[in-house]
């Protein structure tokens, strides 16, 4: 049993990584043809760096991702807090449904509905004028906040309520408790929620295709049109850069977390010794 599982698991990891490995290797291929190995070269990286369309789109995507993740985290935190701390209120069912539905909504449906909304709003109140970075930010913030809300709600559910209650007994008011106790405790969840919203925004192609306008093409949109046209080796180079950046980010995150753990253990040991 153990051996069967091990071999199958290795096959699974191979499925995840072999295509990525090939992509990384071929990003250094001097030849234009994917099937021909023309020796090692960095020409696709140079070409990528001089591709205005990709650089512009990357800038748009980063801008959208930072803004939408920030808005999404702010609202998502409020939603998560309301869902786990406010008990019952009128329209709670509607609130909960609206807060979680974006997660399971097919992207084409979300994209279409938001585009129709923006068109109607423009007709009625003249805002937003056309489709731009603003409309993509609104769209991404809306689904981002649903994911952040789940992350925050999970964190709040696993956090000792008696600390908040103690603060209340000592006379602290609700905003003080939130800012002084709740927020610092859920800070790691805020960071992971923000990163999740940021990544989902960078990853989205379908919704952005509906709600973007002239001059606000995101990076996935530009890659998609290149990929549809056929082989483009500079996309291999871009993929390699993204993989490297994510690997570095994960490595740093793991390192910081481990250091934090070690520090906490030391402090605990010291506290025990002091008693």
């Amino acid at each position, binding site marked *: *049993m153990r051996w069967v599982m091990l071999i199958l698991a290795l096959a*699974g990891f191979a499925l995840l990584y072999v295509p*990525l490995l*090939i992509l990384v290797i071929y990003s250094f291929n001097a030849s234009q043809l994917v099937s021909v190995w023309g020796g090692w070269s960095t020409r696709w990286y140079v070409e990528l760096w001089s591709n205005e369309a990709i650089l512009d789109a990357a800038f748009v995507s980063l801008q959208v991702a930072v803004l939408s993740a920030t808005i999404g985290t702010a609202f998502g935190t409020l939603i998560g807090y309301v869902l786990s701390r406010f008990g019952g209120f009128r329209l709670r069912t509607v609130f909960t449904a609206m807060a979680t539905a974006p997660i*399971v909504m097919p992207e084409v*449906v979300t994209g279409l*509905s938001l585009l129709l909304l923006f068109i109607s709003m423009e007709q009625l109140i003249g805002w937003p004028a056309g489709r731009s970075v603003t409309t993509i930010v609104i*769209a991404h913030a809306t689904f981002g906040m649903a994911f952040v809300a789940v992350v925050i709600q999970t964190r709040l559910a696993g956090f000792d309520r008696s600390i908040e209650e103690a603060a209340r007994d000592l006379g602290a008011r609700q905003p003080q408790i939130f800012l002084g106790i709740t927020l610092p405790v859920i800070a790691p969840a805020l960071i992971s929620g923000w990163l999740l919203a940021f990544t989902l925004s960078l990853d989205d192609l379908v919704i952005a295709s509906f709600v973007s306008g002239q001059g606000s093409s995101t990076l996935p949109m530009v890659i998609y049109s290149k990929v549809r046209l056929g082989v483009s080796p500079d996309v291999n180079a871009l993929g390699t850069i993204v993989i490297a950046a994510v690997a570095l980010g994960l490595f740093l995150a793991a390192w910081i977390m481990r250091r934090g753990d070690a520090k906490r253990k030391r402090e605990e040991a010291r506290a025990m010794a002091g008693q």
Partner: protein
Amino acid sequence: MAHAAARPKGSVSDVREHPSMTMRDRISGALGRRLVIGTPFLWLLIFFLVPFGIVFLVSLGAPEFGVPPYSPAFEWDGGVPRFVGSFDNYIFLTEDDLYWIAYLGSVKIALGATLLCLLVAYPMAYMIARAEPGMRNILLMLVILPFWTSSLLRIYALMGMLRQGGFINSALMGLGITDAPIQMMQTDFAVYLTIVFTYLPLMVLPLYSTLEKLDGSLLEAAADLGANSFQTFWTVTLPLSLPGILAGCLLVFIPAVGEFVIPDLMGAQDSPMIGNVLWGEFTRNRDWPVASAVAIAMLALLVIPFMLLRNTSALRD
């Protein structure tokens, strides 16, 4: 947690009412509470609920040549709205086979791909849960890493493997196993494989989190009672990991049904999935009312049943 459980139900209201609170505190507290609920509520109302109302209204209209390219479902008749729309678009959806075939085809592909994904993911989650702590973290990282990269770039990487002049065909021909390249792109096979490849991390993680919590003493007990490892797996491990299996399957199945990018890049053009049908109606045919009707139908046949089922799911993990 025990403390919270011991309190009577509904006593969460003590967030608002505490003996030390003055009248002023209570008023400002109530106001603050409204603000905290109201702000995100308003956002979701405008940018989530209202859009579906608009989609529904557009789905009742008729396509028209103009900007926007549809006739409204209501006309203003001396300041009073008069309904001039119809449910023709929905009737059209049931009459034209294209939509049923696309919808059922999408469900079939999503279901098959979800099961394949489960088969590939389970051994991975199982081995990770049983690995040494240090190794476990590394393996988990390896599962999470592709999830944080771009799914479009990963699909592109897979295209590099599968295309006519791609890695697999070059290798097969280089080794003399085949003479001509095998057609793998634009097939259902490519769609299944790509969905499994893309959604694999979403399946592994919930499976891992249930398998990790599995009580090892149960496995020992089964072994002591004479079960072999296969019997132990089949009668103890597998049933106990059902919540994770359900959560993972939902996380893969729901987005897979509405998938647009994968069938568009990898699938055959003559068998589109429902997401591609919607996109095609909207962009190529410029038939916004029918596209809207497809969206409402997807909502009714996919999202609403799921929302109703949600209480039993472990999505909250």
